[in-house]
């Protein structure tokens, strides 16, 4: 069981900054994210794009913003459960919470802060009617263990970086690799596109374009897929079908936690501390809603800051505390590090 003071669901910019504000109050944080890396939308959707409305940063790449946030919170030693989705929550008699992920990892904390953004990032599934019957029986949306494709016939669908990169990678492992895409052009890094061209010319990747997989064929497990190219429909024999169409956010299991939901977001008390209808559970950043809500990074930072003050009072109801400027109080890390403003040098003039 992982124990912490504030359990943060979602490691996007809002969740990451909450670690800093909590750290100033000597509260420890642990973050859960469905993605394998921190950064939320900034790292998953637009890491290479500039943002212009972060106060005091005239321009910053979304990926650099995340790197900087990670650097800023390093001294507060946050824990991470990555690549797992927070699935269930249970309130114990002492008003603390246990959050369990889809992989069974349990987390225990007196405060839960949901910073889930637009939701947990899940694979986009193509609208093939019977595809659900074959999930984990030859249809995979994420490649977890490339070894399982050794000596197998694999069909990959998609036109972005992950479809290109995995097609290239699997040529050395699988018996055959077929890549199906709706257009002749691919939207990926130029050298991946060139590499696929090279492997195609060498007969190591079969490219079927412009075409689409419209059906999965099999009997309990995948035996092939139906491919449609123009008016022609044909069967392509395979052991695995891997649709790689990127990820999209889904609010998912959090919607069933008994929280008040409106417009696909969690209703919070914005006049006070961004607490939800369940005391002890807060919602900050893109995932919450209140009158006048704006889904902006700077608003998430503000909400995270107020949430931490309220969390402190919940955890230590009897302790007095007043907010201190970092310039005055410095930043004392849990790793023993200390940053503080240099003291003025006093020197007499004779």
């Amino acid at each position, binding site marked *: 069981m992982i124990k912490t003071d504030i359990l943060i669901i979602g490691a996007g910019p809002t969740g990451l900054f909450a670690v800093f504000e909590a750290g100033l109050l000597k509260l420890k944080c642990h973050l859960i994210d469905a993605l394998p890396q921190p950064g939320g939308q900034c790292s998953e959707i637009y890491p290479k794009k500039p943002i212009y409305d972060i106060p005091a940063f005239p321009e910053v790449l979304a990926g650099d913003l995340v790197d900087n946030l990670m650097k800023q919170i390093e001294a507060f030693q946050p824990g991470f459960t990555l690549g797992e989705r927070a699935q269930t929550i249970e309130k114990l008699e002492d008003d603390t919470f246990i959050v369990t992920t889809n992989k069974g990892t349990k987390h225990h904390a007196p405060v839960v802060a949901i910073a889930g953004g637009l939701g947990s990032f899940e694979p*986009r599934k193509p*609208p093939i009617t019977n595809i659900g019957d074959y999930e984990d029986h030859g249809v995979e949306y994420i490649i977890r263990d490339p070894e399982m494709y050794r000596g197998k016939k694999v069909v990959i669908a998609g036109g972005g970086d992950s479809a290109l990169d995995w097609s290239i990678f699997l040529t050395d492992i699988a018996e055959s690799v077929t890549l199906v*895409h709706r257009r002749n052009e691919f939207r990926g890094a130029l050298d991946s596109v060139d590499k696929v061209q090279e492997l195609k010319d060498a007969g190591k990747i079969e490219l079927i374009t412009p075409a689409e997989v419209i059906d999965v064929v099999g009997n309990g497990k995948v035996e092939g897929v139906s491919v449609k190219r123009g008016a022609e429909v044909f069967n392509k024999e395979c052991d695995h079908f891997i649709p790689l169409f990127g990820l999209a956010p889904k*609010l998912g299991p959090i919607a069933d936690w008994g929280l008040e939901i409106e417009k*696909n977001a969690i209703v919070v008390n914005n006049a006070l501390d961004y607490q939800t209808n369940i005391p002890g559970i807060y919602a900050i950043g893109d995932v919450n809603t209140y009158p006048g809500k704006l889904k902006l990074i700077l608003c998430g930072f503000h909400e995270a800051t107020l949430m931490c003050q309220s969390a402190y009072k919940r955890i230590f109801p009897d302790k007095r505390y007043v907010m201190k400027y970092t310039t005055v109080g410095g930043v004392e890390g849990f790793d023993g590090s200390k940053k503080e403003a240099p003291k003025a040098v006093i020197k007499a003039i004779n």
Partner: protein
Amino acid sequence: MQDITLHITDREGVEHNIQAPTDMNMNLMEVIRSYELAPEGTIGICGGMAMCASCQCYIESDHDLPEQNYDEEAMLAEAFHVKENSRLGCQLFISDALHELKLTLAPEE
């Protein structure tokens, strides 16, 4: 002209006749959101960068629309439920040329 009229059928099949300003640098996806014709969180996920296809719609009138740019073409090639008349709402800017445009929102993926 400052405002144009649009005929939009939402994902539930309800038709809305709405007014959209031509002088606010808005795109079709933003107009749809401003009238709340699709629930928040189900449209405009990428903010209008042709990176998510949540704003896909089917154009049903024969307006002469601007050509698809590279990003729109590429995204539609990876979107689902795509038809001949599919466009990304976020790539269509509100101008006089869109007056009386008729369209239906594509289903949520």
